């Protein structure tokens, strides 16, 4: 594979297959399922090829592609991959085939639309991780919106319309202001360098004027516009209200992608753009974001504890976990930032797995209420084992991935912000409380409902979908260096240390 178009191959393969599928007859559902899976596997292979050829010692973007797009405006089609984007691209490319396998049986209507939406969504996500031109980044960022709207709105649960519209309006509310900020950034570049550009590398050389106060400080305003878009996506505490709805109403595959990678785009954006482009504003906003992160950690855990619906519980646990990521990012040391990045991957794996497994039980019983279950361990041993593994990874048992990420975040942040770390640690305890009590109520206890006596264990497809996630949870837990070493140089470059 020549490296000069490897990134385009990663980004565009899903969309091209998706658009070709549009021309196929609706009834060819087998074709659509297989084509979707094949496209996502080819994308995964391309991503793996990038991993194989990636040079971890090099902090700069690799496999760089640059093509003219709108030269007079300073817009070009630029893709590039550093260690940070590499691990996130790998996560995305890994989760996508899992999504297709997991929805093999559960999506029965409009399979074509589902597969096409998923493939377009994948292109949007991968493109946003790999774009190194701000305009291109924005295009990919918004490209994710419509497929996700369809995935929630067409194949979702009962309150899907409400959830889908809320998702769209929340996301757009943030991102449209980011568009103005991107335009303004290019204006600043022109003012300082006399050259129109939207290239990320060019923006890194700027020093955006800080000014006085908030409303007269370009840097603060731009930081706020970017941070709002990303904070909604993460989601950071008071902006999280779209998340439980979207996660709960989305079909299983949509929830996996939403929790697994879409949320990461928020934290990725904070790290990629806010941190290096607006360093003084970042410093000024750190206390605010640390406070919000700690609130999210504790509040999310408490709300998750109170849930009766398993999917909602997992959704609120995302608020907690993403709170840890924000904490690590804003604490700003190498260890905490690396931990945050690893935690983004971990959360993608464990929460993706949990949504997958909740989807399995929902397909069997058409209920997700915790009280409808109990004693499943006796009926579904394999399923119980998988769920337990994902749970333990999620609450940070040493030897599994969650532990490494949380540990790095907390130790990396402690020297600078001990109070925040102490408070955040209570979130870990609460995490164990709500997850273990979930496991207890669903899997142990006695079987109360007769329907639960004859539930089938994991099918080979479901097991196949779970297996790579389970393997990675253990792999990262035992040898996190495989992934941490990939991103270290890039993280050092972004945090400037």
């Amino acid at each position: 594979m020549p490296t000069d178009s490897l990134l385009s191959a990663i980004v565009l393969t899903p969309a091209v297959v998706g658009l070709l599928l549009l021309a196929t007859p609706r009834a060819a559902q087998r074709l659509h399922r297989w084509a979707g899976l094949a496209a996502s596997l080819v994308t995964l292979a391309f991503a793996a090829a990038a991993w194989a050829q990636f040079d971890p010692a090099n902090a700069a973007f690799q496999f760089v592609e640059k093509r003219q797009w709108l030269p007079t405006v300073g817009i070009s089609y630029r893709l590039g991959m550093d260690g940070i984007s590499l691990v996130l691209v790998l996560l995305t490319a890994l989760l996508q085939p899992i999504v297709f396998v997991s929805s093999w049986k559960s999506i029965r209507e409009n399979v074509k639309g589902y597969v096409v939406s998923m493939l377009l969504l994948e292109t949007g996500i991968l493109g946003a991780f790999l774009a190194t031109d701000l305009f291109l980044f924005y295009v990919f960022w918004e490209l994710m919106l419509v497929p996700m709207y369809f995935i929630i709105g067409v194949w979702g649960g009962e309150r899907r319309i409400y959830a889908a519209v809320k998702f769209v309006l929340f996301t757009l509310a943030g991102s449209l202001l980011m568009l103005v900020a991107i335009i303004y950034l290019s204006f600043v570049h022109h003012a300082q360098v006399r050259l129109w550009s939207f290239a990320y590398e060019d923006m890194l050389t700027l020093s955006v004027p800080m000014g006085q106060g908030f409303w007269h400080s370009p840097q603060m305003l731009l930081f706020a516009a970017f941070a709002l878009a990303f904070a909604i996506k993460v989601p950071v505490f008071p902006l999280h209200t779209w998340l439980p709805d979207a996660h709960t109403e989305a079909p299983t595959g949509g929830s996996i992608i939403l929790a697994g990678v879409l949320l990461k785009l928020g934290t990725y954006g904070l790290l990629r753009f806010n941190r290096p482009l607006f360093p003084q504003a970042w410093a000024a906003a750190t206390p605010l974001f640390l406070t919000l992160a700690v609130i999210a950690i504790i509040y999310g855990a408490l709300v998750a504890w109170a849930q009766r619906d398993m999917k909602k519980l997992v959704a609120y646990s995302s608020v907690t976990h993403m709170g840890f990521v924000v904490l690590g990012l804003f604490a700003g040391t190498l260890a905490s930032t690396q931990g945050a990045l690893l935690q983004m991957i971990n959360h993608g794996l464990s929460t993706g797995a949990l949504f997958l497994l909740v989807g399995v039980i929902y397909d069997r019983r058409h209920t997700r209420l915790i009280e409808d279950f109990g004693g499943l361990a006796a009926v579904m041993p394999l399923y119980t084992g998988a769920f337990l593994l994902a749970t333990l990874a999620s609450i940070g048992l040493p030897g599994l991935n969650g532990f490494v990420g949380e540990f790095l975040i907390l130790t990396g942040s402690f020297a600078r912000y001990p109070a925040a770390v102490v408070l955040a640690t209570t979130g870990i305890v609460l995490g164990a409380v709500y997850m273990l009590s979930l496991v207890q109520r669903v899997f142990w206890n006695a079987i109360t409902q007769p329907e639960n006596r004859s539930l089938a264990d994991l099918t080979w497809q479901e097991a196949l979908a779970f297996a790579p996630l389970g393997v990675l949870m253990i792999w990262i837990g035992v040898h996190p260096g495989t992934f941490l070493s990939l991103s270290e140089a890039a993280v050092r470059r972004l945090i400037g240390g």
Partner: protein
Amino acid sequence: MNPSDLIAILPELVLVLAGGILVLADAFAPGLRPRFGVFAALSTVAALALRWTTPLPGAVWSGALSVDALARFVDTYVLAALLLVVAMADPYLARTRARFGEFYGLVLWSATGAMTLAKADHLLVVFVGLELLSISLYVLNAFHCDSALSLEAGWKYLVVGAFASALLLFGIALLYGATGTFSLRATARVIGERSFAGDPLLLGALALLLAGFGFKLALVPFHAWAPDVYQGSPTPVTAFLSVVPKGVVLIALARAVASLTPTAISPRWVTLLATVAVGSQVLGNLVAIAQRDLKRMLAYSGIAHMGYALVGLVAFGFDGLTGVLVYLAAYTFMNIAAFAVVSAFSENEDEPHLINDLAGQGWQRPFLSFALALSMLSLAGIPPTVGFVAKFLVFRAAVNGGMAWLAVVGVINSLVSVFFYVRVIYYLYMKPLPQRAPSYSEPLAVRLVAGACALAIVLLGMLPAWVLGAGELAARTLVR
């Protein structure tokens, strides 16, 4: 008169002649009626080909017309819109039993008026072009002469249009009083020679010109006619009405602004224009939310879109004008796609075109629904559609012109608009098909128009360099 003058207006001549032939043929050879659409389309293509093969001499007819790159851009835009409208009109007229030569003749003449207006460098030619455009449209609006709604639309457009023309004419008179010339070039020279700051005659002229043009553009506060006229007119006419007059009037306004330099006359000009732009965006988007009829919703959306496009004129300069031009091109495709689908999704012209009736159609008629959904996303400004590129360019012009607040207001309005555009998609794809689903026809021509527009929306959205380059070339004729 020298031959180059005639060559420069060959496309217009072709359209005028073709229109005349069609009207006469209707009287003397009514058996040819089914071929009229093809003939009109072919003459449009011929006019387009002539415009791109004849030279661009600049000022012709003693400086009354400017046949320049800007004129070619606008002609292309008008003729492309005309071609799409003629194509979608034919099955529509056949279905409503109104396949008459007059329809095509009037549409062609109306387009001729539009093309004249866009090149006019002389205020009286501006007026003549505008009247030719408008008077043809008054008749077309009322073309379903047995439908009360259509007649109402014709009447409303006539009364409001006549009022607007009067304002415009009065403005032209004041301008003549102040500068002693009708020629825009000469006006620019006179204004450049001595200061007219605060000159009462010119202030009045500016206000009247803006009001006259504002009516045609349906800008707030001159917008009230739009919903009724959009709703009542035959759908192909609405499609034409929603893109062609607005585009050329914006260009006429741009030509006037470039030569009058209103900022030198009154510092409040920018505030005034920005207020009109913001008002149109806010009102158009807020009221569109409440609409249940698609055509009325598109009318309010059109008000808002002219508000966005006007942002480019507020910022003016090279960026602003380029933005306006790209905006017009984008707006043509997305609006005509929407109206083409609307014309297919209606059983009977007298019935309202309710958004409710789209329920579940997305899976029933995938092709047209996809085109409609795409046009809605483009109108909402979501990438990778051309609507996004257009909005991006005008907002960029505002930011670069030191008016970032206009861009912020614009994106907030876009957010509001997403609500009602996305609702159409919601009805198409997420609502179940009703028990008794309406049976709609889906003629080939409409499929072609919708498909062509959808393709343009996506291709120009992903590869905007082509339309941007043409827009930049055209903008350079007015500003450096």
